[in-house]
């Protein structure tokens, strides 16, 4: 097997300051095979892809390509050798034509050395038509839908006579019909003898197209073998590192939806949230004092759901009411006025202002109510900052310290304090404990419990399932932008959550 592999990675290790991203990972890609690469957030998939494509140099291990050892020092080397990658964020030039995008860098030329557009357009049309994509190849790419653009990206990779094609979440923006077309292309690529590495979280698709699977968890390879031999439940259990038998014993009960207790008015009711390709009619209900967890694998639409509620993701349809009053959709300011605040998933890019002080970061969202005549009241500001720094136990040398200098956990507390300044009714927490140390994590979790006890409605997202299960009163399980199950009361267990993720309550 190894001898004939197109690409063979042995014992790959990669460290970043403070983190071991990959450790002793093996991956073998034989020709004519579609290989699934799966793993949850932080498992090391993207790092591995970057090592294979020459973006990162591995710290240890060996890479051999078509039988001989290689070392790619930049993406161009890997590409010229025949490793093509289609990234999730489509790496094409939107202003250029379809044909140009297909042939950029290796355009056909006439005998004067000039580009031969006629030959290029004909070849491009022929190529796409052979994949069942009918499109005017002279049109700028940006005038086409996401699906067609994704096809062009895949076709570009396939047409460059690549020996290895790496697809990173290729179906995340495709319609079902487009997925079929894509799979036809993949089948052709496979038939031509290339190896395909397929990264996706959509289990249905993995089982449709992939032959073998490698599971990564916490930077290590935990499984490698034919996909058919694994049940979905086994696969999910491997990804999450859970005990399979226990899940089977406890988790295979039916999900009869518990009768919704209509005793109290929900503080938050989201109905039929729909956003193109991402959400398909999601309902979430939160009562005062309740913590509702959102369960789901990466890409299931959890972050999108809270962003839609918070007004930062435009929705096509659906309604949000807070304490019975409707909230205008698509406006963060309107949601905040209604009492809905969100802790964003990406603390660095959407949350902290690293160069500003702790004080300034905390009061940012509450400035208007701390000001009189456009002047920030130092006294009221200090009072509120003092309160929250004590209450959340924010460890900073002083309120004047720059937030960029704090630890991740304290940065997260600063952001929480910023939200709490607004005296919210509903708190949306997207990965509140990601990347923070154990002590701070326990503190944040305890705090969330306290806040709920005071009557706040909380929606919690976490990629750590213990956290969701332990922290939540009920769990809404999402898959591919749809609610597939709701767990309440005694059903809120890790096993049931995992079973729901894998099978989705009679959904296939």
């Amino acid at each position: 097997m190894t001898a004939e592999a197109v690409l063979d990675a042995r014992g790959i290790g990669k460290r970043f300051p403070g983190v071991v991203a990959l450790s002793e990972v093996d991956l073998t890609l034989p020709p004519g095979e579609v290989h699934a690469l799966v793993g949850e957030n932080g498992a090391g998939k993207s790092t591995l892809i970057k090592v294979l494509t020459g973006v990162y140099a591995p710290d240890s291990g060996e890479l051999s390509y078509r039988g001989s050892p290689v070392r790619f020092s930049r993406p161009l080397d890997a590409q010229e050798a025949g490793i093509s990658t289609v990234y999730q964020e489509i790496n094409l030039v939107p202003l250029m034509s379809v044909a140009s995008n297909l042939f950029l860098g290796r355009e056909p030329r006439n005998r004067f050395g000039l580009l031969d557009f006629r030959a290029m357009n004909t070849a491009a049309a022929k190529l796409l038509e052979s994949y069942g994509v009918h499109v005017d190849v002279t049109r700028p790419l940006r005038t086409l839908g996401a699906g067609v653009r994704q096809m062009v990206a895949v076709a570009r990779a396939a047409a460059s006579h690549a020996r290895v094609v790496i697809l990173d979440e290729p179906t995340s923006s495709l319609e079902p019909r487009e997925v079929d077309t894509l799979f036809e292309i993949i089948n052709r690529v496979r038939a031509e003898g290339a190896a395909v590495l397929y990264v996706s979280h959509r289990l249905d698709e993995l089982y449709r197209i992939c032959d073998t699977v490698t599971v990564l968890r916490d930077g290590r390879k935990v499984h490698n073998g034919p996909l058919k031999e694994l049940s979905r439940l086994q696969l999910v259990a491997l990804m999450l590192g859970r005990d399979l038998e226990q899940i089977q014993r406890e988790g295979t009960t039916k999900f009869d939806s518990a009768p919704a207790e209509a005793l109290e008015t929900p503080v938050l009711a989201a109905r039929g949230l729909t956003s193109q390709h991402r959400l398909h009619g999601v309902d979430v209900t939160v009562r005062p004092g309740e913590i509702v967890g959102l369960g789901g694998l990466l890409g299931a639409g959890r972050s999108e759901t809270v962003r839609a509620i918070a007004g930062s993701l435009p929705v096509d349809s659906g309604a949000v009411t807070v304490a019975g009053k409707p909230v205008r959709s698509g406006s963060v300011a309107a949601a905040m006025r209604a009492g809905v605040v969100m802790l964003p998933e990406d603390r660095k890019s959407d949350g902290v202002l690293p160069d500003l002080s702790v004080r300034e970061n905390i009061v940012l969202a509450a400035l208007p109510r701390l000001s009189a005549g456009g002047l920030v009241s130092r006294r009221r500001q200090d009072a509120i900052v003092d309160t929250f720094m004590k209450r959340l136990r924010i460890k900073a040398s002083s309120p004047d310290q720059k937030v960029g200098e704090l630890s991740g956990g304290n940065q997260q507390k600063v952001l929480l304090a910023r939200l709490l300044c607004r005296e919210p009714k509903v708190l949306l927490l997207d990965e509140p404990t990601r990347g923070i140390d154990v002590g701070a994590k326990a503190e944040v979790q305890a705090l969330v419990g306290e806040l709920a006890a005071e009557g706040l409605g909380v929606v919690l997202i976490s990629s750590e399932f213990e956290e969701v299960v332990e922290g939540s009163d009920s769990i809404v399980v999402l898959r591919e932008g749809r609610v597939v199950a709701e767990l309440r009361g005694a059903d809120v267990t890790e096993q049931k959550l995992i079973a729901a993720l894998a099978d989705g309550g009679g959904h296939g």
Partner: protein
Amino acid sequence: MTAVTEKTAVVAADKGMTKREWIAGLVQRRGSLVVLALIVIVSTVAFDSFATVDNARNIAMQSSFLAIVALGMTFVIISGGIDLSVGSVYALGGVLAALGIQWGSLTGILLPLVVCGGIGMLNGALVAYGRLAPFIVTLATLLGARGLLLAITDEGSNTRVMPRDALLTQLGQGTLLGVGYPVWIAVVLFAVGAVMLQRTRFGHSVLAIGGSVEAARLMGLPVARRTMWLYTGSGLLAGLAGALAAAYSASGVTIVGVGFELDAIAAVVIGGTLLTGGAGTVGGTLAGVLLLMVIQNVINQIGTLSSHYQSVVSGAFLAAVVAIQAYLSRAHLGRERGT
């Protein structure tokens, strides 16, 4: 409300361009040409002295220097950059030509090309390898090149005269078929530039870099090397234009070129090149240059109007073109911007 707009934008993108977008696109790409044609027709009717051979020759000669500078600027802007130094480099090129000609015409033309190309290369290296913002790098060389110019002309007080009979001077002043050599040179350069941009891999990669640096890098295009050559070319062309202008006036004038970069940028943008990079044509730039020059000529013909209306008109034109560009890219890329 916003959700609805968002949705229609996505549908429009999926179904191709709407009529409105199509018209806006046409205005952007061909607008300068249409306006140019209209002004020429109206002026021909209105002024007896407009559609004369002499006046056409005059406009062509006036346009040629700006056109050569704008050609280099077109490539730089298409790649997503900007070159503010060309005005100073243009003036420096003229002075260097007048300085170098004392050792012969060949030195007279090579000296500005080497020095100005060098300044362009410095810009390119700082932008491509130093990863500094093009705007601030070329702002620094704008000052630096002006300083160099002052240093070699006794603080601008020394205007060197170029001998009338030198070959280089003849290149500026002589004519072929009744048309001055600088005009011919500009025409040839534009033809070469158009072929380079549209029909070579080099041009194609410039469009790709301007369209999306990240995509270009991932597709394996040599982004840094290309970027450096673009700025080098811009410096070279600005130096050449300066040398030709000096030859035309037979002297290395030190006070020219202030604000010339703005005229060049205006011509490029009016010609339909996206200031954000990724799309544009060399022909559009030529139309933009001619439009600016014809407007200036017409304002002169009217006589009663202040010549300063020219920059008011080009400023207004610039704002309109840029607003149309923003409208277009928002219609198409609305959903990417949304998140």
